[in-house]
C-alpha cells in the first residue's frame, strides 16, 4: 500500500511506529555484534557496555507498545493498516528477546574472561552470531520494504544457524569429555551458542511477520527444524 491516507496524521503515526522498530532493530544488531566481539576479544568492558545498552532496547519496546495502543484506540486501523500495527507489536517483542539473549551472552563473557580459552569455539560462535545478525538485518529490510520473497529467504537461512549450533554442541561435548577442567567454560559457551540459536528463531518470527504483513497469511510451509541436539545423547 503505497497510497496515502486521506488523514495524513494517520500516515505519520504509522511511519513513527515503524521508525521506532527500525531504531530498535539497529540497537539489537549492535548488541549482537558487540556481544560476539566482546566474547571473541575477551573484552570485559565492551561486554559491560552491551549489558547496559539493553535498557534502551527495553525502553523502545515500551514506547512502541504505548504508541501502538494509542493508534488502535484513536484510528481503528483495518486491513493492511491493522496487520501493520499487529506485526509491529510482535516484531518489537521478538527484538526485545533477541536483545535479552545478547545481554546474556555479555554476562557470560564477563565470567568467561576469567577462565582458560577453549580453542576453536570463538571462531564458530563469531560466524554464528554474524549470520544471525545478517539475517536480522535482512528480515527487517524485508519487513520495511514489504518484500515477502526476501523474508522467505531469511527463514530458510535459519537452518544453517541450527546446523552451526549442532556442530558446536558436539564440539563442546568432546572438549568436556577430554578435559573436565574446561567444563565450566564449555557450559557457558554452550549457553551462548544456544542463545544465538534462539536469536535465529526470533529472527525467523520477524521474517514471518513480514510475510503476514504483505500477504495477510502466515507462511504455510513448516519451517525446517534443524536443531537436532534435543535428541542427541
Amino acid at each position, binding site marked *: *500500500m503505497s497510497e*496515502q491516507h486521506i488523514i495524513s496524521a494517520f500516515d505519520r503515526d504509522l511511519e513513527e511506529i515503524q521508525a521506532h522498530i527500525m531504531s530498535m532493530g539497529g540497537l539489537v544488531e549492535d548488541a549482537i555484534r558487540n556481544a560476539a566481539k566482546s566474547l571473541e576479544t575477551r573484552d570485559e568492558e565492551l561486554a559491560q557496555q552491551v549489558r547496559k545498552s539493553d535498557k534502551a532496547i527495553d525502553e523502545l519496546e515500551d514506547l512502541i507498545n504505548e504508541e501502538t495502543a494509542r493508534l488502535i484506540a484513536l484510528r481503528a*486501523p*483495518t486491513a493492511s493498516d491493522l496487520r501493520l500495527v499487529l506485526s509491529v507489536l510482535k516484531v518489537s517483542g521478538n527484538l526485545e528477546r533477541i536483545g535479552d539473549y545478547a545481554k546474556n551472552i555479555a554476562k557470560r563473557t564477563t565470567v568467561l574472561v576469567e577462565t582458560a580459552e577453549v580453542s576453536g569455539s570463538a571462531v564458530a560462535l563469531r560466524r554464528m552470531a554474524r549470520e544471525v545478525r545478517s539475517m536480522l538485518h535482512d528480515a527487517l529490510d524485508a519487513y520495511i520494504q514489504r518484500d515477502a520473497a526476501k523474508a522467505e529467504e531469511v527463514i530458510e537461512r535459519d537452518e544453517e544457524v541450527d546446523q552451526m549450533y549442532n556442530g558446536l554442541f558436539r564440539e563442546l561435548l568432546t572438549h568436556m569429555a577430554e578435559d573436565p577442567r574446561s567444563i565450566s567454560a564449555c557450559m557457558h559457551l554452550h549457553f551462548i551458542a544456544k542463545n544465538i540459536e534462539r536469536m535465529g528463531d526470533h529472527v525467523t518470527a520477524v521474517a514471518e511477520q513480514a510475510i503476514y504483513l504483505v500477504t495477510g497469511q502466515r507462511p504455510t510451509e513448516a519451517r525446517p527444524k534443524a536443531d537436532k541436539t534435543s535428541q542427541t545423547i
Partner: protein
Amino acid sequence: MKPSQPKIAAKNVQVFYGDTHAIKDVSVEIEDKTVTAFIGPSGCGKSTFLRCLNRMNDTIESCRVEGDIRLDGGDIYDKRVDPVQLRAKVGMVFQKPNPFPKSIYDNVAYGPRIHGLAKSKAELDEIVEKSLRRGAIWNEVKDRLDAPGTGLSGGQQQRLCIARAIATQPEVLLMDEPCSALDPIATAQVEELIDELRERFSVIIVTHSMQQAARVSQKTAFFHLGNLVEYGETGQIFTNPTDPRTESYITGRIG
C-alpha cells in the same frame, strides 16, 4: 454451513437513471438470518441497489432496472407481483426518521391495518406492543401511545420507524443509513436491535460508517462506481480484503 437457498438472489442487475448507468451488472446472493452491510463512497450505487430489492426505484420515473432479482426464488419484478405486498415482505428504514404525523400507536398499526393482518382491536394492540418491544422502544412509549410520533427524540423516532417496519412481519429489512442522524447511544441501541432482528429476518444495511459495518454485519459488500467490487465475510473484508479498491476505501486512503 451454507444455507441451501439464498434469501435474495440478484443476477446481472443493471440500473439506469436516464442515460446514467448507476448499477453495472451486479450479482449477489443475500443469506437469510444474516446482516449484510453495503459500503462504498457516496454515489457508488449502494442505496440504488438496496432500493431495487423492494422496488422502491419503481417510483422514480427515469429509473430503469434490468436483470433478475429473486426473493426465495420468486422474481420480484414479475408482472403479477404487487409492489405494495412486496414491500410488506421487504421492509425499509430510511436515513432520516420519518414517522407519520400520527400517534405512536397508529404509526405502528398502519401497516398491519392496510395489509389486514389483525382481525380485532385486541389483535392489533398485540401486534403494536410486540413490534414496539422488538423495536426496543416499548418501555419508553407504553404510557403515551396516543402522543404524536413526531414528538419523540431522533433516536426514539428511528426505533419507532423500525418498529413500524417490522409490524408487517417482513422477511427482509432494508436499512439505508439508519443511524446517521443518531447519537452514539441511540446508534448502539439500534445496532443491538439489528443484532436481535437477525434471528428472524435478513437485514441489509447501507452505512457510511465502516466501524458500524464491521460491528453489525456478518457479510459485507463493497460498491464502487456502480460495481460490486468485493463481497465476503465481514471479518475477512476488514482484515485482509482481496481487491485493492476495497483496501483503499476501508483504510481511508485516496483510491
